[in-house]
């Protein structure tokens, strides 16, 4: 039974890390705010949840496990909410999405420091 938990834990941690990395690369490379929002919003909550679930089997005590579970609940609750509020605020302040481009710019980060 223990080996099964170990493998499951490693699997969850690995998939979580991979998802998180893809999301972060998307946040850095995508051309405008809304696509970046998409990259972050899609991966963030799932990746965080996967990593926390991956940590759970390794918890030494019940207290540690329940605290991890609380963090998980909190992230499941707050992360989508703040993402939603952020996108809504961006639309309300009339931030324009970048439209009409079929190709992604090679390096959208070259806009320099504002």
């Amino acid at each position, binding site marked *: 039974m223990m080996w099964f938990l170990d493998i499951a*834990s*490693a699997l969850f*941690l*690995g998939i*979580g*890390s*991979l998802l*998180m*990395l893809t*999301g*972060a*690369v998307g*946040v*850095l490379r995508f051309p405008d*705010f809304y696509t*970046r*929002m998409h990259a*972050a919003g899609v991966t*963030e909550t799932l990746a*965080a949840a996967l*990593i*926390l679930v*991956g*940590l759970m089997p*390794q918890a*030494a*005590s019940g*207290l*540690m496990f329940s*605290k*991890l579970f*609380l*963090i998980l609940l*909190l*992230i499941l609750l*707050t*992360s989508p*909410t*703040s*993402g939603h*509020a*952020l996108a809504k*605020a*961006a639309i*309300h*302040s*009339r*931030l324009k999405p970048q439209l009409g481009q079929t190709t992604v710019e090679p390096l959208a*980060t070259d*806009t*320099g*420091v*504002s």
Partner: protein
Amino acid sequence: MIIATVIALMVVMLLALARALIGPSIFDRILAVNLFGTKTVLLIAVLGFLFEQPDFMDIALVYALINFISVIGVLHYFEYNGPERNQGSP
């Protein structure tokens, strides 16, 4: 595997920091701060397992709460100033 996760978290934090530094719009920065905050929560939780310190879970919990409050606060005061004052940068 935990060490690999720590390294992945570090890389993600670097990428989020880069996005916070280059902007360009203020919302990109808020997004980056939010991302950074979540990753810090995870980093502290994972470090708690790496160093075998159960007390780190409390800190991670506080981070998760405070991160939410500060993102809400930033959004609030940003909208407070009204869209007309926030268009572009000088």
